[in-house]
């Protein structure tokens, strides 16, 4: 059985507001010495795959796949440090690519790998938060898709748990499927072991040039379908009025008084 997990290198979403600013000309974030991390929901997707492998006694090949320029290799190294079996890098600049072209390039990469039974990705990337790749990739691959999965429930990989607004649903899969993964208490990405981090440095990564894959997919080299017209910071807020008091009881009482005065209760 083979699972492919898509991973993306993103600007750390935990950067505090005070350290974050934007370049309005380029319509991109502007963060000096920007820290980059594995997109958090992709981490959940990796954990789902790793747990499935454990449930299968190790009988699951996991390939991590990314699309991006040279530095994107970092997230593949991280996945290798978490003991995925193989890694592949669609190498190219993805900033100017439209969503459909990205999906088609990744689909072409997947067609060069051993056929997957499951393709997993985070429900949305922690930078632009669009949540569109999973569904578009399913279309490009001609596969069904189940979004908002938090776990694979059986070792055969045929039943998955979906998180909904008002509860959960269990889906039975009927063949290779794309899953987009959301977080819950069971799929926080584990920490890598030091020996695995060291071993990951020497592992091979298959590299596919982006242009080659786009040509293979017959993808239009047209401009992206969506244009970012502006990027700005939200208006600054006023700091809270702190309800003081000698004791917790006094502070709570002051809070209640202020809430009543403001008409909030």
């Amino acid at each position, binding site marked *: 059985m083979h699972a492919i997990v898509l991973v993306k290198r993103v600007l750390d979403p935990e950067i505090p507001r005070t350290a*974050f600013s934007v370049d309005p000309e380029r319509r991109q974030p502007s963060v000096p010495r920007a820290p980059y991390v594995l997109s958090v*929901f992709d981490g959940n997707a990796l954990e789902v795959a790793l747990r499935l492998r454990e449930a299968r006694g190790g009988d699951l090949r996991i390939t991590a796949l990314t699309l991006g320029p040279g530095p994107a290799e970092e997230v593949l190294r991280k996945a290798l440090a978490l003991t995925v079996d193989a890694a592949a890098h669609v190498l190219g600049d993805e900033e100017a690519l439209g969503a459909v072209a990205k999906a088609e390039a990744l689909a072409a990469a997947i067609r060069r790998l051993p056929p997957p039974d499951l393709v997993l990705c985070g429900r949305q990337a922690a930078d632009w938060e669009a949540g569109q790749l999973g569904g578009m990739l399913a279309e490009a691959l001609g596969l069904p898709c189940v979004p908002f999965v938090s776990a694979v429930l059986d070792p055969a990989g045929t039943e998955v748990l979906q998180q909904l*607004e*008002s*509860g959960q649903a269990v889906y039975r899969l009927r063949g290779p499927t794309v899953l987009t993964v959301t977080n819950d208490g*069971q799929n926080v990405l584990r920490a890598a072991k030091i020996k695995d981090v060291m071993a990951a440095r020497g592992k091979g990564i298959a590299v596919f040039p982006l242009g080659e894959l786009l040509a293979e997919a017959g993808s239009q080299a047209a401009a992206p379908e969506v244009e970012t017209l502006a990027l700005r910071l939200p208006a600054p807020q006023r700091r*809270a009025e702190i309800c003081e008091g000698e004791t917790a009881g006094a502070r709570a009482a002051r809070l209640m008084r202020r809430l009543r005065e*403001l008409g*909030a209760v």
Partner: protein
Amino acid sequence: MGGDPLAKILTVACAAGAGIAPAAVELTQAAAHLAADMEGELCALMLGVGARAAAPALQAAGADEVITCEEESIADAPGEAGLVALVEACRRLRPTLVLLAADSLGRDWAPRLAYRLGAGLVTEVTDWSVEAGRPVFQRMVFGGKAIAAMAVQGEVAVATVRPGAGRREVPPAPGRGPVEDLGVAIPLAPRWPRIVARQAEERQGPGLEEARVIVSGGRGLGGAEGFLALQELAAAFGGAVGASRAAVDEGWAPATWQIGQTGKTVAPDLYIAVGISGASQHLVGCARAKTIVAINQDPEAPIFDYARLGVVGDWRQVVPELTRAVKEMLPG
């Protein structure tokens, strides 16, 4: 641009019992305002058993033409079967803009529909304006730290819409037009994933979307037991309990309690954030609350830059005192 000179917007709603959910009414009304601004018309696709009976509710909310589809496969494979219905409705109506709710179904359909239509997709829209005849959409990015304005280049656009987007004070005029069945059979295809079990969340008291008061807990609670204290406080208010992503990831609260950019978007009168640091992606979920209160041990926590009122202290002392004060003030 070729095609119809008028803008034509299509929204989608799912039948819920005899009517439609308040969120679907809200989206239809917002879409009706946008259609008027673009001098176009609004059509609606109503899905699920009971769709025909619920169609008048969509027209009352501003939809003109309504297409219904009551195929049973939509219940078993909503992503796949609903998508087939959507694609067929688009083939028939040729909309220039498809608006879907940014809920689990809308988020499932939108990228796949956009791919099949060759349309540009903008997701998680929080607001819009009309410029040079086309919609310009606002959305939060980078964990709620920035706002992007985006527009679709081509002839057809798909967008998913967050609660509250495009809301106006005055509702739109009711629509008028035919209500017709989609007229296609949608059998369950062999390779479609199917729902084999469902579990509704058990919740006492109001749901998060309806609650007037929400008490929410984060990593600062230090454990699941903290949520018991929050439940008492919420109960004293007749409200509901929510959670930050950190608390869900720790396993202290179920995912259905999560509030934030990828959790629920709530708009209560009062939102009390306990032990929540104030990550911007969390604030995206509660920013529409009328009053935000923060209770946190750390006076430097970012939440105090967003809350209206704050208490610096240990929730273990503050929350029970607050519960006592609420019970005294709001007996019964």
